[in-house]
């Protein structure tokens, strides 16, 4: 695997828009198809939003590191925070039959990415989210990756 980029951002809502634009550009440069590119942007945005809101609890001076790795066919994204370790068992999608505001981020991440793994960092604080996505599946992309992802999940 080759590391493509490692970026640092503060745990602030206004950092998300430039992050999304950066992800879109980087994934496109790596040959990511349009639908998978939307998936990557969505998942990384939701993941960083969860870090801002839940891991750092709205604190705006927390650090987030986003790393992008690539092999021949796949993009790997690692998102590090340095907040209190979270209970990994507690990170799960909620029941979507219950219509209420909030709690959709984890569900969306699992829907749009090929694999998702939450870990505690080895040090005393911090968490890592590791997500993988195929760069391009031309036939599937033309047919609509979202529908396929929904069916998959």
């Amino acid at each position, binding site marked *: 695997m080759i590391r493509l980029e490692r970026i640092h951002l503060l745990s602030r*809502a*206004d950092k*998300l*828009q430039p992050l*999304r634009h950066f992800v879109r550009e980087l994934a496109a440069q790596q040959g990511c198809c349009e639908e998978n590119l*939307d998936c990557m*942007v*969505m998942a990384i*945005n*939701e993941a960083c*939003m969860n870090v*801002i*809101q839940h891991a750092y609890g709205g604190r705006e001076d927390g650090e987030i590191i986003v790393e992008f790795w690539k092999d021949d066919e796949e993009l790997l994204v690692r998102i590090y925070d340095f907040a209190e370790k979270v209970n990994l068992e507690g990170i799960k999608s909620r029941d*979507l039959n219950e*219509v*209420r*505001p*909030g709690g*959709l*981020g984890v*569900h*969306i991440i699992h*829907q*749009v990415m090929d694999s998702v793994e939450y870990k505690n960092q080895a040090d005393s604080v911090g968490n890592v989210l590791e997500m993988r996505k195929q760069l391009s599946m031309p036939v599937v992309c033309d047919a609509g990756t*979202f529908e396929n992802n*929904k069916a998959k999940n």
Partner: protein
Amino acid sequence: MKYPVTQHLNYAVLQLTGEVDLSESPNARKQILNHIKNKSNLLVDLSSVEYIDSSGVASLVEGFQTARAEQLEFALVGVSSSAMQVLQLARLDSVFTIYDSLDDVKE
């Protein structure tokens, strides 16, 4: 972000534009709830939304639930493809009343 409002039949039509993310969704939520507080049936026009995340969707869900509790109408109109993707992922496309355009809205 500006929040243009027009009137259509017995609905206020609130337009959301651009990127409705964690920065903007508190403002969108406030606008939506203000209309409901003023006892107005509400159509939220999403035709110019380029991106919406789960915090923006949460504002719509809260508006929907608050309107229902107040026995007011709440619906979405002209949902952009990017917004529709998120609603479908959250399985909310079958929860909201969604109109393709204002022409489809009847009194």
